[in-house]
C-alpha cells in the first residue's frame, strides 16, 4: 500500500528514503531508524483521523522542520501525503497532494480509510497469557492481550477461521494436540493447550514466551479482517530458529495472500528482526530486506538489491552470516579507538 517513504530531519533520519514492498524485513542496529520508520506509519494513521491541512489553521513551519512524505502503490499512486512536524515528537499536520504521474483511480477518502487501518504490534507475553475481557473480541490488541477473547469469538462465530488457526498452531507445536478456551470469573476468558497424548493442560501463563508470540502471529495471519498495514517489531523474539519459516509463511499469507490460496486483499507488512537465521529465509527475495544504518548521528536505509555481487558472496556464506560480518552495513559499531591515533582524536 505504501510505496515509498522519505524523511527529512525526523529524529536520526535527516535525509533518508526507502521504497517498500508488500513485505519488508527491516534489519539494523538499535537506534538506527527501524523504530522511527514504524513510528512514521503510526503517526500517519493518527493524522489521517483528523482534517487535512488547509481545512483549518495551518501552523507555519521552518524550512528545516521535520517532515515525512509518503507515496502509495496503485490504485492510490495519484497521491502524496506529507506529514509535517513541529518537533520529533509532535507531527500535527498532514497535507495531501495529487501527483501528475499517478494513474490509479483510488480516491483520497478510500486511501484514508486504509490508513486508518494501519496497526503496530508490540507483543507482550504477559499480556497474552493474562485472562482477557470477553468483550474485547473484535480486533487483536497491539500487545496481543486479547488473544483468548478473539479466539472465543472465532470458535463460536467463525469456526472455519478458528479451525485454520488451531490447525496451524498445533502443527507447528506438535507437543500440544488441543486448545481450550475457558471462563475465568464472570467476564474474562483464558486459554490452555493440552500436552499431546496426555490429559494435562498447560495454561497460557505457563507457556513459553515464544509459543505465545507465535500463537498471536498465527492469529494475525488467520484474521479474516486484517489491518491494511501490519508493523511488528522483533518478529523472531523467543522463537526457535526452525519455527521462523512458519512465521515467514504466516507473514507472507498476509502480504501475498494469493500465493497462499487466499482471495483477500494484501496486507502490507513491515517487520523488524535481529536474527541472521530469519534473514537467511529471504535469500530468494532480497528485495524485501531493508538495512538501516547509522553513520555518525544520521541514519539511513539501504537495500540489499544494491549489492550486485550478492550471488558470488552467497557462494561462501549464508545471507545471515554475511549480514553479521558487517560487509553490508546495518550492524552496530563501537569505537574502541583502535584505528585512531591519539593526535587525531578530538
Amino acid at each position, binding site marked *: 500500500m505504501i510505496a515509498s517513504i522519505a524523511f527529512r530531519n525526523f529524529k536520526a533520519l535527516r535525509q533518508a528514503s526507502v521504497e517498500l514492498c508488500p513485505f519488508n524485513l527491516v534489519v539494523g542496529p538499535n537506534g538506527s531508524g527501524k523504530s522511527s520508520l514504524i513510528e512514521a506509519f503510526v503517526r500517519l494513521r493518527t493524522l489521517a483521523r483528523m482534517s487535512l491541512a488547509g481545512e483549518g489553521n495551518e501552523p507555519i513551519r521552518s524550512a528545516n522542520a521535520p517532515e515525512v512524505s509518503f507515496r502509495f502503490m496503485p490504485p492510490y499512486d495519484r497521491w502524496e501525503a506529507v506529514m509535517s512536524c513541529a518537533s520529533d515528537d509532535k507531527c500535527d499536520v498532514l497535507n495531501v497532494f495529487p501527483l501528475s504521474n499517478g494513474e490509479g483511480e483510488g480516491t483520497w477518502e478510500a486511501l484514508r480509510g486504509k490508513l486508518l487501518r494501519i496497526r503496530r504490534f508490540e507483543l507482550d507475553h504477559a499480556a497474552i497469557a493474562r485472562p482477557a475481557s470477553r468483550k474485547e473480541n473484535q480486533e487483536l490488541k497491539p500487545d496481543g492481550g486479547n488473544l483468548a477473547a478473539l479466539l472465543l469469538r472465532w470458535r463460536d462465530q467463525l469456526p472455519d477461521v478458528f479451525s485454520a488457526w488451531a490447525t496451524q498452531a498445533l*502443527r507447528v507445536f506438535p507437543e500440544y494436540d488441543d486448545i481450550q478456551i475457558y471462563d475465568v470469573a464472570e467476564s474474562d476468558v483464558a486459554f490452555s493447550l493440552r500436552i499431546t497424548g496426555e490429559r494435562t493442560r498447560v495454561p497460557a501463563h505457563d507457556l513459553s514466551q515464544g509459543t505465545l508470540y507465535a500463537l498471536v502471529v498465527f492469529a494475525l495471519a488467520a484474521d479474516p479482517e486484517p489491518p491494511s498495514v501490519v508493523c511488528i517489531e522483533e518478529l523472531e523474539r523467543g522463537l526457535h530458529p*526452525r519455527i521462523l*519459516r*512458519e512465521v515467514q*509463511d504466516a507473514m*507472507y*499469507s498476509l502480504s*501475498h495472500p*494469493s*500465493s*497462499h*490460496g487466499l482471495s483477500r486483499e494484501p496486507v502490507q507488512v513491515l517487520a523488524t528482526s535481529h536474527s541472521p*537465521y530469519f534473514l*537467511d529465509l529471504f*535469500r*530468494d*527475495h532480497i528485495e524485501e530486506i531493508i538495512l538501516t544504518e547509522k553513520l555518525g548521528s544520521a541514519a539511513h536505509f539501504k537495500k540489499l538489491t544494491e549489492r550486485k555481487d550478492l*550471488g558470488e558472496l*552467497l*557462494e*561462501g*556464506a*549464508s545471507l*545471515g552470516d554475511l549480514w553479521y560480518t558487517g560487509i553490508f552495513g546495518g550492524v552496530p559499531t563501537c569505537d574502541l579507538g583502535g584505528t585512531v591515533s591519539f593526535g587525531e582524536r578530538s
Partner: protein
Amino acid sequence: MKLAILSESPADEAAIERLVGAVLREPLVRVQSALRARGWPSVAQVLPAVIRHLHFETNADGLVVVVDSDDSVVHTAEHDRPNYFHPLCRMCRLRAVFRQTTKKLPPARGRARVLRAVGVAVPAVEAWYLSGRPADADVSEKAWIDGQSRGHLPYTRAQLKFRVYGTDRPSLVHETNCALREIARFLPDTRRLENDFPGFASLATDLRGWGQPYDEDGRVE
C-alpha cells in the same frame, strides 16, 4: 538400512527420504531425524560434525546429503578422475569432506565408517521434481550446463520453483505437498530421473554401493 538425511528444508527431506527408498528398495530406518543445515555453505561447514556424531553416537549405516548446486560449477564425469577435485563443485567438496572426516575416525559401533550418499540438484531440487513432466521437458542437468557454457541460462531457479509450486512464496506445507506429489512419479522407477540428472544418479550409485566396500576415496571398490 539405518540412515540419516541432511538437507536444506523439511520439504526436501520428505521427498529425499522417499527417493532413497525407491533406489534402495528395502525398508529404511531413519536415524537422528530432523538433521538440518541452513543451505550452502552451511551444509559443508556442519558436515564434519554431523558425520562424527553419527559415527560415534548412533548406529547409522549411512548419511544422505542433498544440496542445490545454485550457480556453482556442475559436477561432470571429468571430476571423477582419480585424485581430481574441483574446488567450485559442490559434489567434489562434499565428497572431500566425507573422505577427510571419515579417514580420521577410528572404527566405532562395529563399523569402519558411516557410508556416504551425496546428491547435488542442478540447479535446485525443484528441477528434479519437474523431471518427466511433459510440459517441462526442457528441464535437465544438460540443459543447465549447456546454458552455463553459452552464458545464457535456460531458466532461473525462481522459474523452476514457480513451475512446481505455482507461486514464488509457497508455504512449507504447500512446498512439501508439491514435492511429494511430483516425486511419486519416480517411486516405481528412478531411471528417468537418473538419466536427466546425473547429480541424482550419483546419489543413487552411492546408495546402491552401500552393500559393497568403499575404497579410500569413497568409491565402490
